[in-house]
């Protein structure tokens, strides 16, 4: 056995740093594939939460009336009211803290599947500023990068090496564990109480009039 040439070559190679690195890399690729595929499976099985609304907006909705925007859109436009008044289907694709890049990606993904009759884009003044955070938050679209070529040019704005990072199967799901856990629970579905993407705030505002900027300015 000791004189076996293959065994001898292996023995010589295993003391070589590059060989050890190559083996570690193979393990890394295998783990990345296994773990990434598992996480992806659970990610797309969510039934509630912001990630679920994003998935629904990108892959499923065929609503005639589409609402895009940040938290103001997410918590203000009630699709039920719009459906009642206009007699057309409505979906609220707004998401807390996200801005124009995200809305544009959602719109592009939707338009690649169907043509909504009306689209509302709720803009804030922040949307007109060039902020690094706006680019960083594009990470929410990474799970859709591989299957949706229409949004790639937007996600690629995040950084120059985004395409290289996307070789990993885990990277698109970075920091999504709590979303995935919560999004797969019945508790979260009841807690968020989404109505076609719309998430109502059920709280009492103390001195609501004083906090209303419109009323304050009038005074």
């Amino acid at each position, binding site marked *: 056995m000791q004189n076996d040439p293959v065994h001898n070559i292996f023995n010589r190679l*295993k003391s070589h740093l590059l060989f*050890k690195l190559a*083996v*570690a890399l193979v*393990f*890394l690729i*295998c*783990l*990345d594939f296994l*773990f990434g595929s598992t*996480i992806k499976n659970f990610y797309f099985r969510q039934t509630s*939460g*912001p990630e679920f609304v994003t998935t629904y907006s990108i892959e499923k909705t065929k609503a005639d009336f589409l609402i895009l925007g940040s*938290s103001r859109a997410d918590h203000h436009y009630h699709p039920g009211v719009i459906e009642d008044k206009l007699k057309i289907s409505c979906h609220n694709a707004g998401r*807390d*803290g996200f801005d124009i890049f995200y809305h544009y990606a959602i719109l592009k993904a939707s338009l690649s599947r169907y043509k909504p009759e009306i689209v509302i884009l709720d803009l804030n003044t922040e949307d007109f500023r060039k902020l*690094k*955070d706006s680019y*960083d*938050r*594009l*990470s*929410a679209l990474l799970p859709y990068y591989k299957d949706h070529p229409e949004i790639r040019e937007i996600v690629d704005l*995040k*950084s120059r090496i985004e395409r290289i990072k996307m070789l*990993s199967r*885990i*990277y698109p*799901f*970075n*920091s*999504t*564990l*709590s*979303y995935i856990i*919560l999004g797969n629970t019945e508790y979260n579905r009841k807690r*968020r109480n989404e109505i076609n993407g719309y998430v109502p705030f059920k709280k009492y505002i103390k001195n609501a009039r004083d906090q209303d900027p419109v009323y304050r300015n009038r005074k």
Partner: protein
Amino acid sequence: LIRSGSVAEAFKIIGKIFAFRSNIFFGDTSEVMNSMFHSVIAVFMLLIADITKEYFYEGNPVFEKAGWIAKSVFYAMLITVIIFFGVFDGGQFIYFQY
């Protein structure tokens, strides 16, 4: 505080930190809850590492005696965990809800 829009907002946040009447803050929106969740995991891991170092650490004979293949698997797992939990940019943010 760095992310607050104005000095007044920054002082308001400091004031809220030292307010004792309200409940413990875990966040209302999923984004805030996500940040809190990762903070708790990170703090817990640091605590475990510190306690281990302080009271139990006398080298790690199991890891030191392990073969290079086992060590390669360990390092691959470590990199996998970093890719999954690591913060690479400002994508994770605290969304002010004061």
